[in-house]
């Protein structure tokens, strides 16, 4: 069905005309080069994103923040507790990966811009459907990058909740991405064979020639190219250099140690200045969630409750907790926002507390915080997370008492769990058989 008759034969003036786009660098080879990087990189960022959803153990308690998910919030397995750096790696790949890919995404969008203005807008039903799916691809991709970048900077200017927005947006993107890859993969492979990367990297600006149009439908190579002001290697170098720069300026907040101070533009590359045992990144200081020295002081008790009927089995002061057998482990705590920090935690094993409550081998444990309000004031842990050797109710860090901001009198540290699940100021733990 020839649908081009629906539109005037002469394109509107401006960007709809072939001669408008004059950069000699645009062409299928260049676009395919960016596409190949994105194909690998975006796949990693998407998979780690979906895995991060699973890391919250969404089937338990009120852990799932996306109540309207339907089939989009799948449950595959209980999130493991080993290796302890699993969530650090996952979120490092997701967040730093996303940041590093941002220049590549922008370069790809620049390289395909003539296609937004192609004329006629579609020639066949096939092309119309394909362009509709591109709306999901490009809209989804930019939506995810923008909301992700805003979220890690705590700029909640988007008028919706981040978790459902980012998760459902990810599915819209995935729908467009998979079909786009399936349709374009042959074109990409053909285009990549038209030039060799090593040759391009040797080509100076005065020898930079426009790409040839590969076929009738090639809208990327320019009809009327102007003289090159940047070589193809210059553009590739600019994009690669941008990614490298973003990596250097952010990755330290995930890698930690000496690299943290290099993360000059990362939201969490900073220190609190005193260099002491509690000088590491805080998520939500006590003052921000209404936790005070009073309600964590002498009156503080940790209630161990046997669920679901709710009878209190034990009521323990911090001294009582310090009197129990203590264990010390070096464990990372990793935030969904991609930053992490590895510290040496000392405290009571969660499995010992389950035993003390009279519920050895608990199927679930729900921890409540003194912070009261907020999405993560209550978190439910799986049987494996309660039972893991290194799962602690930490009382001390780096040989010092926890600071109030880090959860004094007691906080949970579960290896490989999202940081927001490492509940601070724990006041009640309910064990269910």
């Amino acid at each position, binding site marked *: 069905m020839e649908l081009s008759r629906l539109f005037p034969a002469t394109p509107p003036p401006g960007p709809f005309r072939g001669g408008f786009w004059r950069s000699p660098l645009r062409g299928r080879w260049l676009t395919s080069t960016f596409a190949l990087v994105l194909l690998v990189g975006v796949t990693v960022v998407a998979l780690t994103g979906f895995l991060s959803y699973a890391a919250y153990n969404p089937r338990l308690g009120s852990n799932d923040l996306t109540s309207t998910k339907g089939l989009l919030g799948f449950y595959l397995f209980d999130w493991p507790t080993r290796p302890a750096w699993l969530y650090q790696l996952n979120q490092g790949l997701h967040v730093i990966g996303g940041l590093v890919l941002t220049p590549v995404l922008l370069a790809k969008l620049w390289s395909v811009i003539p296609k937004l203005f192609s004329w006629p807008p579609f020639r066949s039903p*096939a092309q119309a459907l394909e362009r509709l799916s591109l709306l999901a691809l490009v809209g989804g991709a*930019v939506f995810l990058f923008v909301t992700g970048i805003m979220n890690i900077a705590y700029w909640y200017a988007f008028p919706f909740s981040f978790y459902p927005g980012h998760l459902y947006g990810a599915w819209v993107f995935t729908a467009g991405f998979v079909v786009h890859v399936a349709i374009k993969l042959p074109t990409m492979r053909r285009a990549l064979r038209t030039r060799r990367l090593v040759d391009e990297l040797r080509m100076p600006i005065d020898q930079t020639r426009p790409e040839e149009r590969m076929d009738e439908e090639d809208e990327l190579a320019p009809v009327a190219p102007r003289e*090159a002001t940047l070589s193809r290697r210059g553009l590739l170098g600019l994009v690669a250099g941008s990614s490298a720069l973003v990596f250097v300026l952010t990755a330290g907040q995930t890698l930690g140690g000496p690299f943290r101070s290099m993360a*000059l533009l990362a*939201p969490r590359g*900073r220190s609190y200045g005193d260099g002491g045992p509690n000088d590491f990144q805080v998520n939500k200081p006590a003052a921000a969630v209404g936790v005070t020295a009073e309600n964590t002081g002498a009156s503080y008790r940790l209630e161990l409750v046997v669920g679901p009927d709710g009878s209190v089995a034990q009521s323990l002061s911090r001294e009582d907790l310090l009197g129990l057998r203590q264990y010390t482990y070096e464990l990372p705590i990793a935030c969904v926002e991609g930053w992490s920090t590895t510290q040496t935690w000392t405290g009571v094993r969660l499995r010992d507390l389950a035993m003390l409550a009279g519920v050895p081998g608990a199927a679930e444990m729900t921890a409540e915080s003194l912070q009261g309000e907020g999405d993560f004031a209550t978190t439910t842990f799986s049987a494996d997370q309660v039972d893991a050797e290194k799962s602690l109710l930490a009382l001390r860090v780096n040989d010092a008492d926890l600071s109030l901001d880090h959860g004094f009198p007691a906080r949970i540290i579960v290896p490989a769990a999202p940081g927001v699940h490492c509940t601070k100021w724990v006041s009640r733990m309910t064990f269910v058989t």
Partner: protein
Amino acid sequence: MARFRALYGSTPLHLIALVASLALTAYAALRIAETSGAAQIALWLVGAALAHDLVLFPLYTLLGLLAGGNRPRRATNHVRVPAMLSGLLFLMFVPLICSLAPDTYEAAAGLQPTPYLQRWLAITAALFLASGLLYALRARRSTS
């Protein structure tokens, strides 16, 4: 088969893949419709599809033209490249650099986002300095 292609414009497989993709998009849209900020999420998704092409692209093209970017001179790139790197960093870290959300940042990190503007300015200065030095070095090599 030829008839199908003539009608549709591609293979049946193409149609199946696209219908499956659009069905998933439609399902996600239904899930979005159930959330509190449904209309806003939809608006942001559509806006995002056009944000680069209709906002960002004209903006950086204009800036490039103002900087004389279309004349093939070596000096142009020594200005253009550090400017683009600096601009990219600004775009990506603007909430911190311009301190757009100091209260939520402090409520999360327990610090004020004060150092980011200075850091970005210092990085920008370093980029231009490095580019300038490289230019001087190249200019000297080509004259000697």
